[in-house]
């Protein structure tokens, strides 16, 4: 019988902001543990977010073998390794000072706005060991700024938000400056009549656009002919300028998933999924890799109390050397929500917050628009490229530009 022990320890302090003031301070120290046992082709699992002993969890996992859940793969072997990409540690006192300073400066520069949201510093230790010699520990830490804004005269509960994740002491001056730039533009309503204007997106991992790639590059969907890409593998369907990668480890940007949810360590941190417009491969966890006779791609995500699922570590679009300075005029989209892709690849994206950009400046907030296109055209004929610039100077995610059909409401 092979055994695996997985533990996630989180130490988090969160500050809640209401009406531009600190409202509360919360400390959360949690430990989530799971045990998996593999025996004669079956798996047993137990988990806990309380302080249950490892031996008790092991007994529960062995008991759950009686549910006869088949498992098509074996635990990977390995050795002892530790990765620590935690940045400068921030104390609780520092966190309060940072939050106070951000709020003071945001309010001072933008007296017509009210701010709310959270500032959270967290440290996470993930520890996985199995009876085949693998023993991995990875430590990460970060500071999340997620600050919503609302104009004092706005009838909405929020008008938008801007946030960033820092790995150490944040550059408060830059954050306030960029935030204020958006708010100044927000105050000026403009209408876009130009249907040919390029659209600049922020490649947020949770965005509708990235979600399409995450779903359709799922190896199982590809194998079962149910992915948009099933019949398009190894085919050049996108622009040669477009490449999409999964990255699991980049200490400079504090990306650290060196082992996946099954304990698999892939050889290369960079995994090309789409390269020069060609769809190269899908993503597989160990279960699906065994089922479809493929190599696992280190893209198994496992919550402590769930079975693994296929999920990228971090998707990013290859830079094409463009600069925002190449654009005299563009629609800069910060928030889209509510729209979705159809299975034929068509999409409608309602713009919840977008700005007109002209000659290096955000000029004003645009009216409500819907952006239409198809995935193949967006990253094919209509793909302009990925920019060198990002929202904040050290961001890994860079803007990208495409042409969209703009529908005015």
């Amino acid at each position: 019988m092979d055994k695996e022990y997985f533990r996630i320890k989180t130490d988090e302090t969160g500050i809640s902001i209401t009406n531009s003031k600190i409202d509360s301070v919360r400390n959360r120290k949690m430990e989530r543990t799971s045990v998996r046992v593999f025996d004669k082709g079956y798996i047993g699992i137990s988990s806990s977010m309380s302080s249950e002993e490892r031996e008790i969890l092991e007994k529960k996992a062995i008991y759950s073998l009686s549910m006869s859940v088949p498992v098509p793969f074996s635990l990977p072997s390995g050795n002892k390794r530790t990765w620590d990409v935690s940045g400068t540690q921030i104390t609780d006192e520092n966190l309060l000072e940072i939050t106070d300073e951000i709020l003071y400066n945001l309010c001072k520069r933008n007296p017509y706005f009210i701010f709310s949201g959270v500032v959270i510093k967290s440290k996470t230790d993930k520890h996985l060991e199995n009876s085949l010699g693998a023993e991995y520990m990875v430590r990460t830490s970060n500071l999340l700024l997620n600050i919503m804004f609302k104009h004092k005269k706005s009838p909405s509960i929020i008008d938008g938000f801007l946030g960033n994740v820092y790995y150490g002491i944040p550059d408060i001056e830059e954050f306030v400056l960029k935030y204020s730039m958006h708010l100044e533009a927000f105050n000026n309503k403009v209408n876009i009549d130009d249907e040919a204007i390029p659209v600049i997106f922020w490649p947020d991992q949770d965005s509708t656009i990235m979600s399409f790639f995450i779903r359709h590059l799922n190896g199982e969907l590809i194998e079962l002919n149910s992915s948009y890409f099933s019949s398009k593998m190894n085919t050049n369907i996108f622009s040669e300028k477009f490449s999409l990668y999964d990255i699991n480890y980049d200490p400079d940007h504090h990306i650290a998933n060196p082992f996946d949810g099954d304990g698999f360590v892939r050889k290369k941190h960079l995994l090309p999924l789409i390269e020069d417009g060609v769809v190269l491969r899908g993503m597989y966890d160990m279960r699906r890799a065994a089922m479809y006779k493929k190599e696992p791609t280190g893209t198994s995500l496992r919550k402590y109390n769930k079975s693994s699922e296929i999920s990228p570590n971090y998707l990013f679009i290859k830079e094409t050397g463009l600069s925002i300075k190449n654009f005299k005029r563009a629609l800069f989209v910060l928030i889209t929500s509510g729209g979705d892709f159809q299975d034929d690849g068509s999409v409608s994206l309602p713009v919840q917050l977008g700005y007109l950009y002209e000659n290096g400046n955000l000029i004003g907030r645009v009216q409500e628009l819907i952006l239409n296109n198809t995935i193949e055209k967006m990253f094919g004929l209509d793909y302009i490229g990925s920019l060198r610039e990002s929202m904040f100077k050290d961001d890994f995610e860079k803007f990208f530009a495409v042409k969209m059909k703009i529908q005015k409401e």
Partner: protein
Amino acid sequence: MDKNEIIKLLDETDLNRGSEYSDIRIEKTYSTSISMSNHNTTNVIEETNIGAFIRVYNKGRWFYKSTSFLDKLQREIDSLCSISKTHNGKSPPLFDSVNPLSSERFLYESKSNNTTAKEKHSLLKSYDEITKEFPKIKITESIYIDKKSETYFASSKNVRTSYDFLGHEIRINYRLSDNDKNFNDVYFCYSDDFANILSKEEEIKEEISESEKFLYAEQCKAGVFPLILSPSAAGVFAHESFGHKSESDFMLGDENMKKEWSLGKRVGSDILSIIDYGDIPGNSGYVPFDDEGSKSNKTYLIKNGILSGRLHSISTAYDLGEKTTGNGRAINFEYQPIVRMTNTFIEKGDVSFDSLVSSIENGYFIKSIKHGSGLSTFTIAPLRAYRIISGKIAEPIKINVITGTIFQTLNDIEGVSDEVELKSSLMGGCGKNEQFPLRVSFGGPFVFVKKMNVS
């Protein structure tokens, strides 16, 4: 730790340790999660957790701590009280209107362990097996989830409340494919009684047969059309478009919002009433007492088109000079209560679904949805939608998204049907700030909106 031991622990914990206010919420949960992927079981897991959330209020600021080490509760309270004393600020009399209360509501004590994980697994397998009868189904993801929770609350204002919750849910996600045509759909059922999710075979077959028609649906024409929203779509509309705006923490200290949202103002058509009420057993938003020990109140957010109420925690009720409504909620013992919805729904009207349909010459019926959102623009991504032609439901149609300006849409409601249906779920839920998912339910009657953008 059983019920009596938890109650004893709360009795023995001293909450009056020098702060202006303190409280503890202990939550014990039992859950089962079973997953099947393409007919193979991938996960059967039963989990029991217990933890506590402690709040201390001093000098105008809250201090929180969550812990799963219940033997150290007193130490954690003392530590928070000590930290809170280092802060300098002024406190408003937030808790003056909090009156002592002692109340418990345990509805599910006898139902907790009647069904074994093996029986739940067998049920899921039998439903999953049905999908094999449909050759166009290429992918399935079948899930069973149940959750039983017990919540115990005690505060320094002598409020003691406790209640339990139980829900079972089955969800079968399936993807239909026929050459290059694909359609994703889902069957789901929910109940607080395991017996009520049995014998669903025929229902599942009917649902899948209907889904198959959507494989060949045409894309809709973009434009402005009249629509009928199903109870689930209407519920998402109520939740996203108006429910979130009724969460009054967004108004704290915002004089303009208070003026803009003054009660008595007309915000919708006079046939529109929206209610939030936690004390409806059997639904996933069932919360007879919130996580601050306040009793749930039936709150009309809109009554006959007039802004009539809003949702409160203790802090927001004080700030707006109103009464608590039982809407201070947290997703679990790791988080603080904030103002959240419970069961939110549009009140029924007096016309039939058929008569709503018959009034539309050329429009759409939104039967089920993928998701919705609501900032200044309200959006719904439909899953199943049908054309309505000459007063009759016609062929299935593909719609990417429907959108509208919230206040315009509230005023454009011209008909509501005579039956209300609430949709419950344990999978997914509502998200706010960093707290997701919170169990809620939403629903309503069929709702006729005279114009919305369709694309």
